[in-house]
């Protein structure tokens, strides 16, 4: 081969995800009636990804049990670094320590994206919230996650809020002790 260009695979990978996700969102906006429906679907897709992604995370990092939510937040940070190549900040802890925010200064998912005015209701990054919820559910943590600030809507940063609801107990199959 005369041409021996080797692409920067890390960059191509991340662009591939960004572009594919973008096309999916565009297709959903076309197919579904309201932005609200799209948000819901994106969250659901994220959830489905999260419940599988956690396995990869655990096997890759060999991480152990978290002692408290601060620990969990740290683990989420390393997941962001691993899968999206960004380093968010954890801030705005609630008094009870059961709620925190992840602040992303840059977000590869929205790098090539502009939201038109008529789609201001769209939560473009809702997939991320779904991934967090899905992944944590698989380690017995029931959380809620939503977007507070969004760079696509003119905010300085993207802020994702995570709220701890309860610990899920292992349920025994019926009929067993």
């Amino acid at each position, binding site marked *: 081969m005369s041409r021996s260009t080797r692409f920067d*695979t890390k960059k191509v990978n991340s662009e591939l*995800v960004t*572009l*594919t996700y973008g096309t999916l969102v565009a297709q*959903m906006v076309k197919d579904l009636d309201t932005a609200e429906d799209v948000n819901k679907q994106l969250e659901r*897709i994220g959830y489905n990804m999260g419940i599988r992604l956690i396995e990869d995370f655990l096997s890759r990092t060999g991480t152990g049990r978290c002692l408290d939510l601060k620990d969990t937040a740290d683990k989420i940070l390393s997941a962001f670094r691993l*899968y999206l190549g960004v380093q968010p900040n954890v801030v705005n802890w609630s008094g009870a320590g059961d709620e925190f925010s992840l602040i992303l200064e840059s977000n590869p998912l929205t790098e090539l994206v502009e939201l038109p005015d008529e789609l201001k209701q769209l939560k473009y990054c809702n997939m991320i919230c779904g991934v967090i919820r899905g992944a944590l559910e698989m380690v017995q943590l029931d959380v809620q996650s939503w977007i507070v600030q969004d760079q696509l809507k003119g905010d300085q940063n993207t802020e994702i809020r995570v709220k701890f609801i309860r610990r899920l107990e292992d349920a025994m199959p019926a009929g067993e002790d």
Partner: protein
Amino acid sequence: MDDGTDILFDLLHFEIVNWTDRAHSEEKDKDKKDEDLSNLEYIGFSTGYRLIERLTKEMPRFKDELDTMKFICTDFWSAVYKKQIDNLKTNHNGVYVLQDNNFRFLSKMSNGKQYLEAAPKYVAFTCGIIRGSLSNLNIHCVVKAEVQSLPSCKFHIQIQRT
């Protein structure tokens, strides 16, 4: 070689397949199934169309059609599917056949013929990727996939000349 975004793309692709499939999951109608695949192909098309533009922007112009195809089989395929195409055949008259013996989206599935029926869903996106990429390089074509035995896959590219 293996980094975190790989699995992210695998999962995302899987969910896209799932999503386009679910749109008509209750209907066994063949037309609807085709429509799902065509949606999936279109998502691939748009992705490929944009991706190739970003990949090739610093590159010299391709010599000819064959040169473009070679690029798709080597650099492009390695970037997206982590390996090169195993075999490229052409009749030198607008038909190209790309064979991948261990296609990324099929490699995690059970080998052999048992799940052959499910295969079209997992190659449609890639047909779109190929068609979109070539389209942006001003080669207009129809791409069909052929799976005879998992995890290998053949992509038939038929160039449209006007």
